[in-house]
């Protein structure tokens, strides 16, 4: 993947040299040309095109923005309700993610969406203990977290 990005940057620089004008716009144009060159090369050299990952990152970002807004609306409901009827709790959520980097990203995203807060990890890093501001149903909450972010993170890293 690093090799592809390097190649893409090289194509952009060569493009600037061919145009003989070194402005950011030319660089950007050269980069887009490089993406197309790599797209064609992909069928010949059989590598995993890195823009797929960029697209996955973009999708993760969109998902996170949506969750951020939805969860904030939930938070408004809890904080402004006349009587506090929410039932907080700490739930152990197992995760399929394996590397430290993935688990850290998942924990940070969980902490950033309102209503959930990652408190601790198990020794092997495979279980995250999450404090949730409202746990009506334990299994549902675990499934919710696994469905939401885990899949999107797996798409980025694998």
């Amino acid at each position: 993947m690093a090799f592809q990005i390097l190649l893409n940057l090289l194509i952009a620089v060569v493009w600037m040299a061919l145009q003989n004008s070194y402005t950011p716009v030319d660089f950007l144009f050269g980069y887009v040309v490089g993406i197309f060159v790599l797209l064609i090369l992909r069928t010949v050299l059989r590598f995993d095109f890195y823009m797929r990952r960029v697209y996955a990152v973009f999708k993760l970002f969109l998902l996170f923005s949506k969750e951020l807004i939805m969860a904030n609306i939930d938070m408004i409901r809890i904080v402004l309700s006349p009587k506090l009827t929410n039932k907080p709790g700490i739930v152990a959520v197992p995760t399929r993610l394996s590397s430290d980097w993935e688990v850290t990203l998942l924990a940070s995203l969980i902490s950033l969406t309102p209503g959930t807060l990652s408190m601790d990890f198990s020794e092997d890093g495979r279980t995250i203990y999450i404090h949730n501001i409202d746990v009506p149903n334990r299994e549902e909450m675990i499934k919710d977290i696994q469905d939401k972010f885990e899949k999107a993170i797996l798409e980025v890293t694998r």
Partner: protein
Amino acid sequence: MIEILISIFVLIGGFFSLLGSIGILRLKDVYGRIHAATKSATLGVVATITGTFLYFLIIDGEFSGNILLTILFVFMTAPVAAHIISRSAHRTGIKLWEQSTVDELVDTYPEKERQLHQQAEKTERS
């Protein structure tokens, strides 16, 4: 027209920051207050900073990258702080609110720290 859009962004940001403060006052335990302080603030900060960024971009015609970096740094530091505060609070035996349903974290602690939790519950009752 564009000023109205910017005002909406800044007002949303202000509203969520206010909501965070109300949450700190109303929720009963440390963990709930961490939720209120860090979470409502994230959307509040994002909305306010987006408004500021748009103002400088459109009205002054200046692309200020360091304003956008503020969002990045808030997003990087807020979860870490929340994680460490809640973790150390729970380890030193601070009780959850009575309405809490489950606590699966305390079971994983070594004996000594679990005793700390039981002591805290006893002093609460007496």
